[in-house]
């Protein structure tokens, strides 16, 4: 057959461009990680392999504080967001359309549509005034701001999971005289768990990664890991920042890989 030699799927040059794209995607990240292992002080010359800068970063108290703060904020924001999003998802799925349904949906997803810088300065305006009124300037502002933009991210996978769930199981439980709360705890919640975990993780990663909103909302001395790095980039950069970035990157890759496999098992 002459046909077999001619691949209808191939387009000339596409493979080359694709290869180029993957090089472009990975070259900068690999460079960044490689220089984290550089023994020399500078970012230009290679001075041999060393873990020196990781040690330096780990001993830096400013880095420790920022990492700890990032973790506290991400855990709190993702937990609250996951709970609020689960409740909202239950209220907005598997139901006939009712007045306010579309409104709720738009309302919850609105933070996704607004450019981050706009939300950031809007929060700056409001929190600046609240800080004067109440005198409180703790981590609460950061946690609240993070929770708000985490909610739509937590909501999406939970809602998706809920929509794919069979209502017959819950109806069967109710038929067997399980009170509503028990139906929820023993049937709905276990079935929904993968969605909630996915939503929580998504929210956690989104919160951990946030730069812009944290940069504008934080009070003095409230650096998160990303805002700390942003501050460092203004000065002469040493491989210490590379080491922090590389560690951060490793954490993200682990989380994304877990997320990827959780979602794959489902299908």
């Amino acid at each position, binding site marked *: 057959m002459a046909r077999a030699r001619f691949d209808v799927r191939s387009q000339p040059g596409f493979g080359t461009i694709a290869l180029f794209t993957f090089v472009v995607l990975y070259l900068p990240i690999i460079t*960044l990680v490689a220089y984290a292992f550089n023994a020399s002080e500078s970012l230009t010359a290679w001075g041999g392999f060393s873990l020196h800068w990781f040690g330096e970063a780990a001993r830096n108290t400013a880095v420790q504080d920022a990492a700890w703060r990032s973790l506290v904020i991400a855990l709190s924001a993702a937990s609250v967001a996951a709970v609020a999003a689960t409740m909202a998802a239950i209220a907005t799925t598997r139901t006939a359309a009712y007045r306010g349904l579309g409104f709720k949906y738009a309302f*919850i997803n609105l933070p996704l549509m607004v450019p981050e810088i706009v939300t950031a300065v809007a929060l700056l305006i409001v929190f600046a005034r609240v800080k004067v009124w109440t005198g409180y300037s703790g981590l609460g502002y950061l946690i609240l701001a993070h929770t708000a933009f985490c909610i739509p991210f937590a909501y999406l996978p939970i809602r998706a999971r809920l929509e794919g769930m069979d209502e017959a199981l819950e109806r069967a439980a109710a038929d067997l005289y399980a009170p509503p709360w028990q139906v929820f705890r023993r049937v709905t919640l276990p079935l929904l768990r993968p969605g909630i975990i996915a939503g929580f993780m998504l929210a956690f990663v989104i919160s951990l990664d946030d730069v812009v909103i944290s940069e*504008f909302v934080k009070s003095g001395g409230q650096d998160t890991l990303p805002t700390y790095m942003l501050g460092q980039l203004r000065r002469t950069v040493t491989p210490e920042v590379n080491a922090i970035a590389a560690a951060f990157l490793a954490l993200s890759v682990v989380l994304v890989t877990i997320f990827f496999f959780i979602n794959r098992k489902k299908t």
Partner: protein
Amino acid sequence: MASAADVARQEEGRKIRSRWLLSAPALVIVFIAAIGPLLVMLAYSFMAKADYGDVKFGQFSLDGWFSVILQRDIFDDTLTLADAHLSIVWRSIRLSVITTFATLALGFPTAYFIATRPRHTREVWVFLVTIPFWTNLLIRTFAMQQVIRNEGILNSLLIWLGVIKEPLQIMYTDWAILFGMVYVYLPLMVLPLYASLEKLDFRLIEAGYDLYAGRLAVLRRIILPLVKPGIVAGSILVFIPSLGAYVIPRVLGGGKNLMLGNLIELQFGAGRNWPLGAALSITLMALVMVAMLFYVRNAARSGGGHG
């Protein structure tokens, strides 16, 4: 005696109330820390500016909005167009459009390449696109900085190849912002493109070749129209964050090559002009809404379906 219909109606009313109660926490949090502040900002854009940042509360003024496009000469009080602002708005739009086309040019062949791999390896390729997508934006910007700076890999490579003798000054130019945005937003183009290319029916392409269409004709007349929803979705996903970019121009563009996001920040920092900053923010939101409307209209027209 309540009729069955009454009971059903009461039951329905109770359900709706409990649904509002259930969604209340999410709605309240989003209102307090997202929508409410946006409304406050809208109000601030119509107030007079105070001398040291903030606004004169409740004092109506259109100065903020005027300063978006006009400036008053401090000596003779004449009004002229605010060239500085307009050129920054124009730069934001221009760079975002170029970024969108550049990511499309790289992303379309890449998504096509992934979609034509054997089924079991596709997932691996998609995963390879997902990893940079989930990597912190700041880290990716920083990584790009290390590639394009004067002593970076790109310049070293070009000098080694003999293309140039002196390192190119890319950092702190529009090119740096462009490279950064293309790099950072590329996965946002590839993923939706792949989603629609994956569903492409290759029998249609075969039919095209049978009817003596050339490769270009097949690409232009069959493939592109079929994956148009993916192209529109990817373009909007790249264009919108590009327009509101803040971190990338701040790190790669230096202090001179501002985009809208940096101009907004400036008004809340050194500029001490909160009403102008608020007005600029709403301008940015309006631009995003226009892009979004364009998307919705396009999505509606192509009907979201194939063939």
